[in-house]
């Protein structure tokens, strides 16, 4: 049997197919059955089933998913792969779960490697790797249409088609999902956090002969998200148009697998990704002297104030303190007062375009009965364009070499050694090593020790930021004559931030001792770990707050466990838990660092047509707020002519009235929805 066809319990930890007991990491596998049992609407939600993982909506409708979470809006320390394509975006170091071009029902399984895995995937596989694997078209036989509607503005739909030829198979799905976000009014107003997302995900597979398989993947997404007002902007103006973020994504991926022999195979994969995000908003700015709306608000976009800001070393407070003694600024302010009876209003946008081109060659070789080697090379070109964040376009080309060797040293002992070398234009050279030993103490029972190091390299924004927020569509008369009234055209907000370009990569060093065991109808994984994160960029880096330094550090120490128990054929019980002590020198790094967290999921197949599942999630705490939620799902399946129908009713019930991380994130009502899926 060729290596390519070998079954693999886990693929992710070391890029080599290997049984979970021999993997050099703790692994959580969430397969399609578990995804369906969870009742989750959105992909990020199922990651609540991973011990130590935070998966919550922190910023209104924007999820934060983080393993051993630290900062509240932090999804930059974990790598996410979608069918091998990195979803870690180069511009602003983040994973955008909303715009990921895949629907939860396209997913076959998710493998989460808990712990650093940069030795296999390079920089930014920092705390964990989430590997999302979509359904293979060869394993789908029916077309599907589904609709879902519920309270809280939930309105989703999906259509998927599949086809098979002699040696080919394809699938395509389009989906839409929308909801109104948190429904509890905050300070008397409804939260602006509606969202609407459409995705397209297709795959075509061709087995040209027994040695060669080709795959083509094409897809994309578009989104519209209401965003909350930026507090820095709200302090100096009145929003006339609420911020709305519009996103577009497209990708094209190609893969060729060639089987040389039963023990040797080659995989060449390449992909291109395009991502565009624009958040636009309109504001009437306040006169900095009077605090009222008026023409004086235009001073904030004047050339003179920008120059004064620069003269004061980018210190906003010092700039305003110097205004009374600045002749040019006072002169400009005086001339603005001559424009009587109008307010200065302008639209602005935070824009970002990211492109990535990636080519990778991977060779998998079973050297002999005791040794397996995965090695390869990768070249990647990232390009980011942004007027608001970079004032232009920046490129980063990186080159990588990697290798992971698994050796059965003695019959019960497996040694995993891996390393990843990379060099990029921004961060120079790095090497991330990992070593692991698995000792099979008895059939079905394995102890492991893993040591690993990883880096998170500063992203293009962190390294090259030159922020410039431009005044667009200004109110009259400013729009007609910006040079005369503001001193320059185009006109920018006076605050600008520049990265020093000297930031170092964040580092992590991790050690773990783990146990993986199988008993009758029961599977258990336990992990004790210590992690040291150093050189962290812990402070805010946005156009209003910008403190670039590597002063942060975090130490995690704790235990995690996951247990799967199937007492009878119709019952599945899955428990996870994590107890983590977090120490840090920066308060912001503890926002979502819960001391205790866990989940319990119970699925019961009542009869061939009826199924019930219920889940409980808790975290104690996120930003001093305890998180507790219980879900219930009832499923009913029946035939209607040639079609198979499945009805699902889901209710998600918050077990307390605590907000989620921040006080504005609250649900007033339980979320509930009804779904109908038809397969034909």
């Amino acid at each position, binding site marked *: *049997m060729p290596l390519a*066809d*070998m*079954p*693999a*319990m886990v693929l992710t930890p070391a890029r080599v*197919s*290997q*049984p*979970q*007991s*021999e993997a050099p990491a703790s692994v959580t596998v969430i*397969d*399609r*059955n578990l995804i369906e049992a969870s009742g989750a609407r959105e992909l990020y939600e199922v990651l609540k089933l991973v011990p130590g993982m935070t998966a919550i909506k922190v910023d209104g409708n924007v999820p934060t998913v983080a393993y051993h979470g630290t900062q509240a809006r932090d999804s930059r320390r974990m790598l996410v792969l979608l069918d091998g394509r990195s979803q870690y975006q180069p511009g602003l170091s983040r994973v955008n779960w909303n715009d990921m071009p895949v629907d939860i029902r396209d997913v*076959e*399984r998710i493998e989460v490697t808990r712990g650093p895995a940069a030795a296999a995937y390079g920089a930014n596989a920092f705390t964990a790797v989430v590997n999302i694997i979509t359904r*293979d078209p*060869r*394993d*789908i*036989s*029916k077309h599907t249409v589904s609709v879902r509607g519920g309270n809280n503005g939930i309105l989703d739909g999906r259509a998927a088609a599949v086809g*098979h030829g002699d040696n080919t198979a394809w699938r395509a799905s389009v989906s839409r999902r929308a909801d109104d976000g948190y429904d509890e009014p905050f300070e008397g107003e409804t939260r602006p956090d509606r969202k609407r997302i459409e995705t397209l995900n297709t795959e075509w597979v061709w087995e040209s002969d027994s040695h060669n398989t080709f795959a083509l993947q094409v897809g994309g997404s578009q989104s519209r998200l209401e965003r909350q007002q930026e507090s820095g902007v709200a302090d100096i103006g009145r929003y006339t148009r609420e911020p709305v973020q519009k996103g577009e994504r497209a990708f094209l991926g190609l893969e060729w697998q060639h089987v040389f022999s039963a023990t040797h195979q080659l995989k060449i994969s390449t992909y291109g990704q395009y991502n565009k995000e624009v958040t636009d908003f309109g504001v009437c700015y306040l006169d900095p002297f009077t605090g009222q709306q008026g023409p004086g608000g235009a001073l904030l976009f004047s050339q003179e104030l920008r120059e004064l800001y620069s003269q004061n070393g980018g210190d906003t407070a010092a700039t305003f303190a110097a205004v009374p003694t600045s002749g040019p600024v006072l002169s400009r302010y005086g001339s603005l007062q001559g424009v009587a009876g109008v307010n200065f209003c302008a639209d602005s946008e935070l824009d970002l375009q990211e492109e990535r081109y990636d080519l990778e060659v991977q060779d998998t070789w079973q050297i002999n009965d005791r040794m397996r080697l995965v090695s390869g090379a990768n070249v990647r070109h990232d390009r980011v364009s942004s007027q608001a964040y970079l004032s232009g376009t920046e490129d980063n080309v990186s080159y990588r070499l990697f290798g992971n060797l698994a050796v059965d040293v003695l019959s019960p002992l497996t040694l995993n050694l891996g390393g990843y070398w990379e060099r990029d234009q921004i961060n120079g050279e790095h090497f991330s090593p990992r070593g692991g030993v698995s000792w099979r103490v008895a*059939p*079905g029972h394995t102890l492991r020790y893993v040591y690993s190091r990883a880096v998170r390299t500063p992203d293009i924004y962190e390294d090259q930021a030159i922020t410039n927020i431009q005044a667009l569509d200004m109110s009259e008369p400013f729009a007609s004559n910006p040079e005369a009234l503001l001193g320059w055209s185009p006109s920018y907000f006076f605050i600008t931030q520049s990265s020093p370009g000297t930031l170092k990569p964040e580092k992590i060093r991790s050690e773990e001792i783990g146990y993986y065991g*199988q*008993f*009758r*109808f*029961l*599977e258990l994984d336990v992990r004790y770990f210590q992690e040291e994160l150093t050189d962290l960029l812990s402070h805010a880096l946005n156009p209003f707050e910008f403190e670039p330094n590597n002063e942060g550090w975090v130490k995690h120490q704790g235990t995690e466990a996951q247990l*799967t128990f*199937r007492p*009878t*054929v119709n019952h599945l019980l899955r428990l996870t838990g994590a107890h983590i002590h977090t120490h840090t020198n920066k308060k912001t790094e503890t926002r979502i660092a819960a001391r205790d967290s866990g989940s319990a999921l119970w699925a019961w197949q009542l009869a061939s047509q009826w199924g019930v599942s219920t889940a409980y999630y808790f975290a104690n705490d996120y930003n001093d707020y305890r998180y507790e939620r219980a879900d219930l799902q009832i499923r009913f399946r029946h035939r209607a002519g040639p079609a198979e129908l499945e009805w699902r009713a889901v209710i998600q019930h918050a077990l307390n009235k605590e907000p989620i991380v921040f006080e504005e994130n609250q649900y007033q009502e339980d979320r509930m929805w009804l779904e109908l899926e038809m397969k034909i």
Partner: protein
Amino acid sequence: MRQGRDWLIALLLVLAPSSLFAQTPPLAVYVEGAQGHFRSGFIQALQAAGQPLVLVASEQDSDMLIALGDEAFSRALEQGKPVLGVFVSRALAEKVERKGCHCAAIWAGVALDDQLAMLEVMMPLARKVGVVLGPNSAWSQGALQDYSGRLSLFPMLVSPENELGDLLRETLPELDVLLLPVDEDLFGPAAAKLILLTSYRLRRPVFGPEQSYVQAGSVASLYASGGDLVAEALVHLESFRQRKRFRRSGFVHTPSVIVNEHVAGSFDMRYSNTEALRDAQEMLP
């Protein structure tokens, strides 16, 4: 005293037939089957067994026929002599037995319960077992219903309307493991590729149906080896020689085990070696 003598006479009458059989001449047996290594090896093993048998060169000189495989079995039945079929499909054997043949058969394959017992040892987490069945499979749907062990069996019936590929795609994701019976019609090379590749992609291990599948990539199987078939045939022959009638048809009672260590290892199965596996299997209720 008279009563005691009557009892002794009765006992002698009961024992007499067996003592008479002990003096019956050896069976003259002809082995019907395609010329080849299997037939010659089978004949050699019978000769080496030291049983009171005479292997004759033609059907006419024989007391009974041993037929190796379905074709030989069908041919042998036309000779009008008692026939013991070896490695014969269960469906064929039951069909001719219903018609009243003077025959019996050692069915191709192994007993369902035996395969399941091995599966249980190797996969303690498994609960839902899909069993692919066709019209000529070694196990019937009834056999699945008769199973009373801890596992839940899900028959996957292949028919012209229910094509194997669609059946696998639809059913396999909800199962833990797939079990295949011996069925020459159903599990040819193309089907083997389809089953194994589909199951690997969906990460569901396949057990059975015999050693060639295991060599191709199924996890493990009990199977009737040449030696197992010879040993089972000798039991049948001795029974026939002594009683002039066949034992009931069935699978071999002590099958062999084959495990694909690479595949078993990939699925993290509890397995150290085949001997340990056999021991563990015998411990099962």
